[in-house]
């Protein structure tokens, strides 16, 4: 048998009873046309399947069945059926779902709600921190660079980790600066929140 045929065996076993999808079926049938070994395997599988299908004809005899029936009905006579309130509660609680499916659905719902609540709380806290940071003075390190790390400002309140901000600076024109040293340029800081933009006007002393 070729190595390639070994990988086809399980597909041929499925093809016998039509358990393959259209693409796989075509591929296996094409292989069968080319490979005599696999064609023999296919025929043998058909024969063994036919033999097992013949077992469907054998049925349990009436004596064995009536024995089971007698035992069941005898036992059921001693049992009480589920009370009506249990039936109603079950339908209300599980709404026709399987017990495990219903419990899993409730668990997923609880997890989703918990995640949503946590997300909202975190967002709210971040907004408060940003608003607080807006009120505090911000000290830039190097205003000339186009991209800078904005160092965290020491405040009493906890601030988020320093992040790389894109600092948009209106660069002073060297020619204009040469003409007048006294001209001051505003510095614009862009924060995480697009609604909060900080402008800083440095004085002559640089504070």
């Amino acid at each position: 048998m070729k190595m390639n045929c070994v990988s086809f065996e399980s597909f041929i076993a499925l093809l016998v009873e039509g358990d393959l999808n259209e693409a796989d079926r075509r591929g296996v049938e094409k292989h069968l046309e080319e490979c005599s070994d696999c064609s023999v395997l296919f025929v043998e599988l058909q024969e063994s399947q036919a033999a097992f299908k013949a077992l469907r004809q054998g049925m349990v005899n009436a004596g064995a069945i009536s024995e089971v029936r007698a035992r069941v009905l005898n036992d059921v006579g001693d049992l009480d059926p589920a009370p009506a309130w249990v039936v109603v509660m079950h339908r209300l609680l599980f709404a026709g779902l399987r017990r495990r499916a219903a419990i899993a659905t409730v668990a997923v719902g609880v997890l989703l709600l918990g995640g949503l609540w946590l997300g909202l709380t975190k967002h709210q806290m971040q907004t408060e921190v940003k608003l607080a940071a807006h009120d505090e003075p911000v000290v830039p390190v190097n205003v000339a660079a186009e991209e800078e790390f904005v160092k965290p400002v020491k405040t009493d309140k906890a601030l988020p980790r320093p992040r790389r901000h894109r600092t948009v600076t209106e660069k002073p024109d060297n020619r204009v600066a040469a003409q007048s040293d006294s001209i001051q340029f505003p510095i614009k800081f862009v924060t995480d929140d697009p609604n909060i933009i900080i402008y800083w006007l440095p004085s002559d002393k640089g504070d």
Partner: protein
Amino acid sequence: MSTQPNTSWIDPATLWMSRTRQEDDPASVAETEFRQVLARAVSGDSRAFEQIVVRHERRVLTLSWRLLGSMEDAQDAAQEVFLRTFKYLHRFDLQKPFEPWLVRLTVNVCRDLGRKRSERGLVFVESEEQLDRFDLASTSDPFAELQSEQQRRMLYRLLASLPEKERTAFVLRDIEGLSTAETAEALGSSEATVRSQISSARLKMRKAIAKSSGGRRQ
């Protein structure tokens, strides 16, 4: 005295379904009637439950026998299946088909019983006495019948050599004739898993038959 039948026990969903179904279709009429029987059984009618037992006992016992390979165990399993049916029938959704639910219950009971049996050191067995409790398709040719009987015993012995999961999938799919999707539902697994199990089982059975009859390819 009122001549109106008491229909208070009928589930409203069942009544609605009975109105929407084709009245002239015998299969749907029988199905509607059976759902009414189920609804009565849920409300505690023991006569209705007996009708359910009578309708499904052969199927349940045969399936149990094929899964367990022992008539004694199969009878115990079938008894347990119907007792669980009585106990948990209120959990069954009356708008869904009943037979898949019962097959799944039977498979679960047989698994439990098989597990207990393997703990006791017993395996999938078949005795001469147990085989006598099977009705064979009677033919006029006694030799053909004998040959058929011998072949049947051989096949069940080969079946016994399969691992439990593969045997269950193979029995449901290839002997009981369920579809792959129905088999997967009964086993509580995916169709891909069932396909893998039945593919492996078919190859093993083909190999075992070829070996027992001196086949060409091993």
